[in-house]
């Protein structure tokens, strides 16, 4: 290849990867939240306040690191060999991870896909690589819901379940930002509602009392438990339905209004005196769709 091959080949066609890895995604972008909509005209501002508080807590803190290890020190030293020891601050910046749609249908334990470059030796070029998690199907049992479930799972979730001392504890303890799956949020909602409504083992009252004492600290009022783990789209639909029902309850149908007016008119006329109405009989007035009289043949 000649020396000026770079002019012939454009910059976007040189590397084997035709696109760059995605940029650093902000916390509120990853969860599809627009925090400026919580204040202002719109449905999002009318959502219940305990729900908005939970979403802000979701965004405020960073999730637990999964595919990288943070350094707990504050400062490090640079250029020790030359004798000019400088103190350099350490900032733990996360590795950007991509979570596909299949992660919402399983419990991957915070794992995802990482796209980057690697090189085996220093004098070589870096080549692109996709690091993927090992996912397999596994059966898990939940005491509160009293059922076995087949879930796509990684080795990390099994270690986290042992850390939390139980599958139910794992789902109730971990926050949404660490679960990272809609299935986990849905199970959390079911468990919290079952604990509040006391709809656990319906045929076994002894076990119901044992579990209610075991999971005492996780009980939340029912109004808040219905809104735990919902995405903003689902919450908007729920809020609109609630508002529509309230509107219909407040409204009175027109039929009732017209009947009341009719009754008033008739009462006034009976008091005044009976007389034929100019517009015809009463039934002809309120029969707009009158069929035309057929001529007798």
């Amino acid at each position, binding site marked *: 290849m000649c020396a000026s091959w770079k002019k012939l080949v454009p910059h976007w066609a040189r590397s084997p990867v035709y696109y760059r890895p995605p940029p650093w995604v902000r916390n509120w972008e990853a969860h599809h939240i627009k925090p400026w909509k919580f204040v202002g005209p719109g449905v999002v501002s009318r959502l219940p306040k305990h729900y908005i508080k939970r979403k802000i807590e979701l965004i405020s803190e960073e999730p637990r690191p999964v595919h990288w*290890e943070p350094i707990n020190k504050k400062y490090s030293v640079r250029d020790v060999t030359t004798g000019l020891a400088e103190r350099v601050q350490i900032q733990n910046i996360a590795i950007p991870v991509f979570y596909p749609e299949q992660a919402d249908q399983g419990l991957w334990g915070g794992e995802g896909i990482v796209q980057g470059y690697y090189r085996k030796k220093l004098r070589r070029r870096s080549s692109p690589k996709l690091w993927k998690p090992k996912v397999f199907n596994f*059966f898990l049992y939940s005491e509160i819901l009293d059922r076995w479930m087949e879930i796509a799972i990684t080795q990390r979730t*099994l270690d986290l379940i042992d850390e939390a001392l139980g599958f139910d504890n794992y789902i109730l303890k971990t926050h949404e930002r660490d679960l990272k799956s809609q299935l986990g949020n849905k199970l959390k909602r079911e468990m919290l509602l079952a604990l509040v409504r006391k709809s656990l083992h319906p045929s076994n009252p002894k076990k119901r009392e044992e579990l209610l004492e075991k999971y005492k600290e996780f009980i939340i009022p029912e109004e808040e438990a219905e809104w735990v783990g919902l995405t903003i789209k689902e919450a908007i639909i729920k809020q609109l339905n609630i508002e529509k029902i309230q509107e219909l309850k407040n409204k009175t149908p027109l039929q009732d209004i017209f009947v009341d007016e009719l009754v008033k008119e008739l009462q006034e006329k009976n008091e005044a005196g009976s007389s034929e109405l100019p517009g015809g009989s009463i039934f002809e007035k309120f029969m707009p769709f009158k069929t035309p009289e057929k001529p007798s043949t």
Partner: protein
Amino acid sequence: MRGLVACRLCSPLFKDIQSLFVTQMKKQSSSSKVNELKSNYLEKLQEKGLGQPSASYVLKRRYPMRLVKKGSVPFFKKKNYVYEEVDKKKMEKNMGKDAKTAPVMEKEPPMPVILTRDVLGLGVKGDLVFMKKNMARLYLLPVGIAVYSTPENRALYPVQTEPEPDPEAEMLRFKTLSTEKMTEFLRKMNLYIPMSAHNDWTLTTKHVRIAFRWHSVVVPEENIQLPAVAITGPNTELQPFDIAVKVKEDIIVNVRSFIQPWYNDKEEYSQEIEAIKELKQKYPPYLKASPEVMELQRERQEKDHTFRHLLHCSPSIFVKEACELALKKHFAELQGKDFKEEPSFKFKIFLERKDHPKWRKVVMSKVMNLPAESL
């Protein structure tokens, strides 16, 4: 030698038996020295930060990132996406090889677990046992036989110093593992005693001893006890009866036995093949069950589950035990007796997981000879 039964799993000499099973007891035992070594190993892992939950891959940046002001977004270059892999399992393995105080090194670090009741081969209620992680997650924890080891649970299940007095448990408390295996083998087996179908005969201990020999079991005649009602004559109707075998002075096992008619000529045998087939359908071998048992299993239809993935263990062992227990119940009900026998350790767990879809489908498919997809 008196009071002994040698099994084909054991060697014929008594001394060799002891040496074989003492080594197995060391591996399975939860002695104090082994527990100390394993707990020290786990503490060392946690000091180095290695015993924590793992991920499929752990990465590290080759080139560090630029510092970032508060509230702003970090600036990424292509070199900031160059990563290196970090192997944590190698670090755990190397730690075990170098350390002489942790000779019990496995591929995965073990998990401490407290037992809530007596378990054959593992220990007594309240014992701290170090198990492999998958064994505990699949067999012990979801069923309630074991519990995670926390200071709260250690107070709930303290170590027993004096055993509870149970007359049934005293019969079953074995001193060596050889007697455990012998009694399980004798409980599971079906004894077929070949007797002639032409001549008159009465059952004696000699016939039973020879029949046991066909099944690779050596029993002296002193330890055999026939039923009270003597069995006589050329009997082609196969009905089971129990024979008591003395394994030790305190331990007696009832072995279910049948009479197998032995024909001299093939012509007579061929004439009665149909009768034998009918009898085998009534009292079939391991993998088939009577239609009454199959109906009982069909009645246990609960919530629908779907499964595509099989666990590591093979269910053939559980299928045998399941059918035997069902048959024994069936026979006990016919004779009007009470059924008190208990299954083995692993099968108990398999039974209690009644909601597990694998048990239901695999057992029913083999018992009913139907494909699992139709269930």
